[in-house]
Protein backbone atom coordinates (compact mmCIF):
# COMPACT_ATOMS: atom_id res chain seq x y z
CA UNK A 1 0.00 0.00 0.00
CA UNK A 2 1.21 3.48 -0.81
CA UNK A 3 0.41 6.26 1.66
CA UNK A 4 0.81 9.87 0.55
CA UNK A 5 1.85 11.83 3.61
CA UNK A 6 3.26 15.16 2.42
CA UNK A 7 4.11 15.98 6.01
CA UNK A 8 7.11 17.84 7.42
CA UNK A 9 9.36 15.67 9.55
CA UNK A 10 9.93 18.63 11.81
CA UNK A 11 6.20 18.72 12.52
CA UNK A 12 6.54 17.03 15.91
CA UNK A 13 9.07 19.66 16.93
CA UNK A 14 7.03 22.50 15.47
CA UNK A 15 3.92 21.38 17.36
CA UNK A 16 5.76 21.51 20.68
CA UNK A 17 7.32 24.84 19.71
CA UNK A 18 3.86 26.24 19.10
CA UNK A 19 2.79 25.04 22.54
CA UNK A 20 5.84 26.67 24.12
CA UNK A 21 5.01 29.95 22.43
CA UNK A 22 1.42 29.74 23.69
CA UNK A 23 2.68 29.12 27.24
CA UNK A 24 5.00 32.11 27.00
CA UNK A 25 2.30 34.33 25.53
CA UNK A 26 -0.11 33.33 28.28
CA UNK A 27 2.46 34.46 30.85
CA UNK A 28 3.28 37.56 28.77
CA UNK A 29 6.90 36.56 28.49
CA UNK A 30 9.03 37.20 25.46
CA UNK A 31 11.60 34.58 24.46
CA UNK A 32 14.80 35.12 22.55
CA UNK A 33 16.93 32.33 21.06
CA UNK A 34 20.67 33.15 20.95
CA UNK A 35 22.56 31.33 18.20
CA UNK A 36 26.24 31.41 17.32
CA UNK A 37 29.26 29.22 16.76
CA UNK A 38 31.00 27.92 19.90
CA UNK A 39 32.75 30.66 21.81
CA UNK A 40 31.38 33.65 19.91
CA UNK A 41 30.56 35.23 23.26
CA UNK A 42 26.90 34.38 23.99
CA UNK A 43 27.30 33.81 27.72
CA UNK A 44 29.65 36.75 28.24
CA UNK A 45 27.28 39.09 26.42
CA UNK A 46 24.34 37.70 28.37
CA UNK A 47 26.15 38.34 31.66
CA UNK A 48 26.54 42.00 30.69
CA UNK A 49 22.98 42.29 29.44
CA UNK A 50 21.67 40.82 32.70
CA UNK A 51 23.59 43.46 34.67
CA UNK A 52 22.03 46.20 32.53
CA UNK A 53 18.54 44.72 32.92
CA UNK A 54 18.74 44.62 36.74
CA UNK A 55 15.79 46.52 38.14
CA UNK A 56 14.36 47.18 34.66
CA UNK A 57 13.21 43.77 33.47
CA UNK A 58 12.91 40.32 35.04
CA UNK A 59 14.92 37.90 32.94
CA UNK A 60 15.13 34.10 33.10
CA UNK A 61 17.72 32.08 31.24
CA UNK A 62 17.82 28.63 29.64
CA UNK A 63 21.34 27.42 28.92
CA UNK A 64 21.83 24.76 26.26
CA UNK A 65 25.11 22.87 26.18
CA UNK A 66 26.20 19.42 25.13
CA UNK A 67 27.86 18.92 28.52
CA UNK A 68 28.60 20.70 31.83
CA UNK A 69 26.63 23.27 33.81
CA UNK A 70 29.34 25.90 33.52
CA UNK A 71 27.32 28.47 31.61
CA UNK A 72 24.36 28.09 33.99
CA UNK A 73 26.72 28.63 36.94
CA UNK A 74 27.98 31.84 35.35
CA UNK A 75 24.40 33.06 34.92
CA UNK A 76 23.32 31.95 38.40
CA UNK A 77 26.09 34.18 39.77
CA UNK A 78 24.01 37.10 38.44
CA UNK A 79 21.13 36.04 40.73
CA UNK A 80 18.88 35.25 37.80
CA UNK A 81 16.68 32.13 37.50
CA UNK A 82 18.47 29.74 35.17
CA UNK A 83 17.97 26.20 33.90
CA UNK A 84 20.71 24.17 32.26
CA UNK A 85 19.84 21.72 29.49
CA UNK A 86 22.47 19.11 28.63
CA UNK A 87 21.73 17.75 25.18
CA UNK A 88 23.86 14.58 25.65
CA UNK A 89 25.54 15.02 22.32
CA UNK A 90 22.86 16.70 20.22
CA UNK A 91 24.29 19.81 18.56
CA UNK A 92 21.16 21.94 18.95
CA UNK A 93 18.23 22.51 21.30
CA UNK A 94 14.81 21.28 20.26
CA UNK A 95 11.35 22.35 21.37
CA UNK A 96 10.87 19.40 23.73
CA UNK A 97 13.98 20.21 25.73
CA UNK A 98 12.82 23.82 26.06
CA UNK A 99 9.31 22.69 27.05
CA UNK A 100 10.79 20.87 30.04
CA UNK A 101 13.07 23.77 30.95
CA UNK A 102 10.18 26.25 30.86
CA UNK A 103 8.48 24.26 33.63
CA UNK A 104 11.42 25.09 35.89
CA UNK A 105 11.22 28.86 35.40
CA UNK A 106 8.92 31.24 37.31
CA UNK A 107 7.31 32.44 34.06
CA UNK A 108 4.58 34.44 35.80
CA UNK A 109 7.25 36.69 37.29
CA UNK A 110 9.37 37.12 34.17
CA UNK A 111 9.39 39.60 31.28
CA UNK A 112 11.99 37.90 29.15
CA UNK A 113 13.44 34.42 28.72
CA UNK A 114 16.79 34.18 26.99
CA UNK A 115 17.62 30.77 25.54
CA UNK A 116 21.31 30.24 24.82
CA UNK A 117 21.44 27.56 22.16
CA UNK A 118 24.26 25.05 21.76
CA UNK A 119 27.24 26.66 20.03
CA UNK A 120 26.58 25.74 16.41
CA UNK A 121 26.07 27.93 13.36
CA UNK A 122 24.20 25.32 11.34
CA UNK A 123 21.26 23.37 12.66
CA UNK A 124 19.79 25.46 15.52
CA UNK A 125 18.13 27.42 12.73
CA UNK A 126 16.05 24.38 11.71
CA UNK A 127 14.56 23.79 15.13
CA UNK A 128 11.90 26.21 16.28
CA UNK A 129 11.94 26.37 20.09
CA UNK A 130 8.82 28.45 20.51
CA UNK A 131 10.89 31.61 20.83
CA UNK A 132 9.68 34.94 19.48
CA UNK A 133 12.96 35.83 17.86
CA UNK A 134 16.30 34.41 17.03
CA UNK A 135 19.37 36.56 17.50
CA UNK A 136 22.58 35.45 15.81
CA UNK A 137 26.01 36.36 17.16
CA UNK A 138 29.17 36.55 15.12
CA UNK A 139 32.52 37.38 16.70
CA UNK A 140 35.11 39.34 14.78
CA UNK A 141 37.71 36.60 15.28
CA UNK A 142 35.62 34.20 13.17
CA UNK A 143 36.11 36.16 9.96
CA UNK A 144 33.83 38.52 8.03
CA UNK A 145 32.82 35.86 5.51
CA UNK A 146 30.84 33.75 7.96
CA UNK A 147 27.47 35.35 7.25
CA UNK A 148 27.79 34.51 3.57
CA UNK A 149 29.06 31.00 4.33
CA UNK A 150 26.39 30.13 6.89
CA UNK A 151 23.45 32.17 5.61
CA UNK A 152 20.67 30.07 7.13
CA UNK A 153 21.16 31.17 10.73
CA UNK A 154 21.36 34.83 9.75
CA UNK A 155 18.33 34.52 7.53
CA UNK A 156 16.31 33.07 10.41
CA UNK A 157 17.38 35.85 12.79
CA UNK A 158 15.76 39.22 13.38
CA UNK A 159 18.99 40.73 14.67
CA UNK A 160 22.70 40.02 14.44
CA UNK A 161 25.19 40.98 17.12
CA UNK A 162 28.78 41.32 15.98
CA UNK A 163 30.76 40.60 19.15
CA UNK A 164 34.31 41.17 20.46
CA UNK A 165 34.58 44.49 18.60
CA UNK A 166 37.47 45.38 20.93
CA UNK A 167 39.53 42.86 18.94
CA UNK A 168 38.87 44.53 15.56
CA UNK A 169 42.34 46.18 15.45
CA UNK A 170 43.97 42.76 15.77
CA UNK A 171 41.98 41.00 13.03
CA UNK A 172 41.38 41.43 9.30
CA UNK A 173 37.62 41.50 9.93
CA UNK A 174 36.05 44.00 7.51
CA UNK A 175 33.04 45.34 9.38
CA UNK A 176 31.51 47.16 6.40
CA UNK A 177 31.75 44.19 4.11
CA UNK A 178 30.28 41.88 6.76
CA UNK A 179 27.32 44.19 7.40
CA UNK A 180 26.79 44.51 3.65
CA UNK A 181 26.70 40.74 3.22
CA UNK A 182 24.36 40.38 6.19
CA UNK A 183 21.94 42.84 4.65
CA UNK A 184 22.16 41.02 1.34
CA UNK A 185 20.97 37.89 3.10
CA UNK A 186 18.18 39.76 4.84
CA UNK A 187 17.69 43.51 4.27
CA UNK A 188 15.55 44.03 7.40
CA UNK A 189 18.20 42.61 9.79
CA UNK A 190 19.04 44.79 12.76
CA UNK A 191 22.81 44.75 13.27
CA UNK A 192 24.56 45.60 16.55
CA UNK A 193 28.30 45.92 17.05
CA UNK A 194 29.28 45.14 20.63
CA UNK A 195 32.17 44.40 22.92
CA UNK A 196 31.31 42.74 26.20
CA UNK A 197 34.86 43.40 27.32
CA UNK A 198 34.87 47.14 26.58
CA UNK A 199 31.15 47.48 27.34
CA UNK A 200 30.37 49.06 23.97
CA UNK A 201 27.11 48.71 22.05
CA UNK A 202 25.38 47.04 24.98
CA UNK A 203 23.01 49.85 25.92
CA UNK A 204 21.69 50.06 22.34
CA UNK A 205 21.10 46.33 22.40
CA UNK A 206 19.25 46.38 25.73
CA UNK A 207 17.13 49.35 24.64
CA UNK A 208 16.18 47.54 21.45
CA UNK A 209 15.28 44.40 23.39
CA UNK A 210 13.19 46.39 25.81
CA UNK A 211 11.34 48.21 23.03
CA UNK A 212 10.28 44.85 21.67
Amino acid at each position, binding site marked *: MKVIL*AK*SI*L*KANDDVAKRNRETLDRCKVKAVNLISSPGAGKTTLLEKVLELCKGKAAVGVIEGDIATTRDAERIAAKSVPVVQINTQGA*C*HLDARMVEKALLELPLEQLDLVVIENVGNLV*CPASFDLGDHEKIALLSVTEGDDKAAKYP*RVFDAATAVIITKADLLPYTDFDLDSCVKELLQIKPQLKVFVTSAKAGSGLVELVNWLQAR
Partner: protein
Amino acid sequence: MHELSLIHGLLELITASAKVHDIKQVSLIRLVVGEYYGALPEALNFAFEAVTRDTICEGAVLELVATAGRELYVDYYEGD
Protein backbone atom coordinates in the same frame (compact mmCIF):
# COMPACT_ATOMS: atom_id res chain seq x y z
CA MET B 1 23.76 14.52 15.01
CA HIS B 2 21.54 16.85 13.06
CA GLU B 3 20.61 14.08 10.65
CA LEU B 4 19.87 11.78 13.57
CA SER B 5 17.25 14.16 14.98
CA LEU B 6 15.68 14.53 11.57
CA ILE B 7 15.44 10.75 11.16
CA HIS B 8 13.89 10.45 14.62
CA GLY B 9 11.23 12.89 13.48
CA LEU B 10 10.73 10.87 10.31
CA LEU B 11 10.31 7.61 12.22
CA GLU B 12 7.78 9.18 14.57
CA LEU B 13 5.74 10.45 11.65
CA ILE B 14 5.74 7.15 9.77
CA THR B 15 5.02 5.07 12.87
CA ALA B 16 1.97 7.17 13.72
CA SER B 17 0.64 7.01 10.17
CA ALA B 18 1.36 3.28 9.76
CA LYS B 19 -0.66 2.58 12.88
CA VAL B 20 -3.66 4.38 11.41
CA HIS B 21 -3.37 2.43 8.15
CA ASP B 22 -2.57 -0.87 9.89
CA ILE B 23 0.76 -1.19 8.12
CA LYS B 24 3.11 -3.65 9.80
CA GLN B 25 6.18 -3.36 7.60
CA VAL B 26 7.36 -0.32 5.64
CA SER B 27 9.27 -1.02 2.42
CA LEU B 28 9.98 2.41 0.97
CA ILE B 29 10.01 6.02 2.15
CA ARG B 30 10.37 8.96 -0.17
CA LEU B 31 11.84 11.93 1.67
CA VAL B 32 12.20 15.38 0.12
CA VAL B 33 15.12 17.32 1.58
CA GLY B 34 15.75 20.97 0.76
CA GLU B 35 19.28 22.25 0.50
CA TYR B 36 18.39 24.71 3.28
CA TYR B 37 18.62 22.00 5.92
CA GLY B 38 22.20 21.09 5.11
CA ALA B 39 21.52 17.41 5.72
CA LEU B 40 23.96 15.06 4.01
CA PRO B 41 22.48 12.06 2.13
CA GLU B 42 25.12 9.66 3.48
CA ALA B 43 24.54 10.84 7.03
CA LEU B 44 20.76 10.57 6.59
CA ASN B 45 21.08 7.02 5.29
CA PHE B 46 23.44 6.09 8.09
CA ALA B 47 21.13 7.57 10.73
CA PHE B 48 18.14 5.88 9.09
CA GLU B 49 19.77 2.49 9.33
CA ALA B 50 20.70 3.00 12.96
CA VAL B 51 17.40 4.48 14.12
CA THR B 52 15.06 2.06 12.30
CA ARG B 53 16.64 -1.13 13.65
CA ASP B 54 13.89 -3.26 15.29
CA THR B 55 11.14 -0.93 14.04
CA ILE B 56 8.55 -1.31 11.30
CA CYS B 57 10.90 0.68 9.04
CA GLU B 58 13.85 -1.69 9.37
CA GLY B 59 15.22 -2.58 5.94
CA ALA B 60 13.05 -0.03 4.13
CA VAL B 61 14.52 1.87 1.20
CA LEU B 62 15.03 5.55 1.97
CA GLU B 63 14.58 7.42 -1.28
CA LEU B 64 16.04 10.92 -0.96
CA VAL B 65 14.93 13.71 -3.26
CA ALA B 66 17.16 16.77 -3.04
CA THR B 67 15.62 20.15 -3.79
CA ALA B 68 17.00 23.66 -3.74
CA GLY B 69 14.39 24.97 -1.35
CA ARG B 70 13.31 24.74 2.27
CA GLU B 71 11.22 21.61 2.08
CA LEU B 72 11.73 18.76 4.46
CA TYR B 73 8.85 16.33 4.23
CA VAL B 74 7.81 12.76 3.61
CA ASP B 75 6.24 12.63 0.19
CA TYR B 76 4.90 9.10 0.57
CA TYR B 77 5.79 5.70 1.91
CA GLU B 78 4.89 2.15 0.96
CA GLY B 79 4.26 -0.89 3.12
CA ASP B 80 1.97 -3.79 3.96
